[in-house]
């Protein structure tokens, strides 16, 4: 049987015994989504990196904490990631924006874009505005937006990930959207108002 076909609990057992190949299969499968979630929630590549590292260190050092009969490994890893992210957000203010991604040496690359430099600049500005607006949301609303809009989870999946009822997720998402709309309206109208005032 190929290593990729093995079930995750079996792979985890092998990984804990020191099988690097088994560990890498698990790591490669889960790390990116955990990293993106942590990055979108914290806005800090350093924090996201640290969170992902801590999550996988935990699974290496204390594998008994994962109990296959209580759920999939992915759900367990997400739960641990979420706890670490929440602790980070409680402990520290937002450190730096996602602009710094390249400077921090992550694997992010500018996607190839056939747009003109003007359009690229405009697009970058819009992305930056929405990124700032998402990061400015209160944690629980931000999480609902990140999971339901950016990670494209269904309400049920998001509710399961957050350990709350579907109704709570819907309500948080509703509030999050309303806040985002208000923030972006403010951000986008401010330059318009300024230019109108200058005339």
């Amino acid at each position, binding site marked *: 049987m190929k290593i990729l076909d093995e079930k995750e609990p079996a792979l985890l057992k092998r990984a804990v015994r*020191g099988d690097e190949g088994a560990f890498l299969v698990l790591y490669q499968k889960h790390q990116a989504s955990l990293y993106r979630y942590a990055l979108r929630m914290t806005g800090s590549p350093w924090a996201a990196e640290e969170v992902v590292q801590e999550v996988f260190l935990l699974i290496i050092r204390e594998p008994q904490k994962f109990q296959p009969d209580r759920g999939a490994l992915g759900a367990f890893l997400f739960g641990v990631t979420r706890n670490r992210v929440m602790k980070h957000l409680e402990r520290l203010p937002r450190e730096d924006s996602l602009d710094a991604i390249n400077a921090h040496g992550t694997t992010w690359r500018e996607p190839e874009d056939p747009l003109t430099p003007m359009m690229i600049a405009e697009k970058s500005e819009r992305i930056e505005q929405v990124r700032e607006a998402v990061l400015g949301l209160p944690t629980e609303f931000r999480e609902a937006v990140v999971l339901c809009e950016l990670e494209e989870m269904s309400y049920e999946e998001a509710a399961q990930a957050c350990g709350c009822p579907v109704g709570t997720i819907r309500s948080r998402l509703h509030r999050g959207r309303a806040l985002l709309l208000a923030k972006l309206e403010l951000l986008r109208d401010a330059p318009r108002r300024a230019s109108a005032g200058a005339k």
Partner: protein
Amino acid sequence: MSCEQFELLGLDMDRPDAQPEEAVSAREHAASCERCFALLQSWRELQQDLRLLQENTRFLSAPARVEMRLKQELRTRREARVPRSTVAMAPWALAAAGALAVAVGWMHWRDGSPSRIVNKAAVSNSSRSGTIAPDSPMLLAADSDSGAFTRLPASMPSPYENREILQVRMQRGALGRFGLPVAQDRAAEWVQVDFLVGEDGVPQAVRLHDDSQLDSTLQ
């Protein structure tokens, strides 16, 4: 659907997990209400921006250094595990060694305690040879102790590395069966004897412990 309900549920109409009835009634409401239609338009613009952000970060993953650190941790733990497992085996090894020592001690005790061995052998040659009595108490003591033995009469010399030493407690008179002269008046005495046995199982040499007084035996 009212405007309040639309604010709560209407923006979900484009989601794949939206209730079909809710989506239909939200569309109908947006078509008939300017304010809610404007809200829907604003939300769709925001959704486009969120898609841009999503696309922009879709291929992000943890830096390679995280993988390297984790692999290092795995290797460190794997290396640390080797001595630990040795330590874990030590009690078993000690227990096994203890049991063996007790068993050997008990056998020694049962067969009578062996006395100090000395190289005191002056055996005269004789033409007869013999074998050890099958009911004599015997103990395989060592396989490399080749200290001064006296060759038995008619035995063939062979390399020492292929021979073994048997410790035997026997009556002095039995030595006569190996071609050794025995004083008849002491034939009933018990003595401790080491035999050097060849690969073929035939004794080749003999030595008596100091308290066995081989010299006096061979008178």
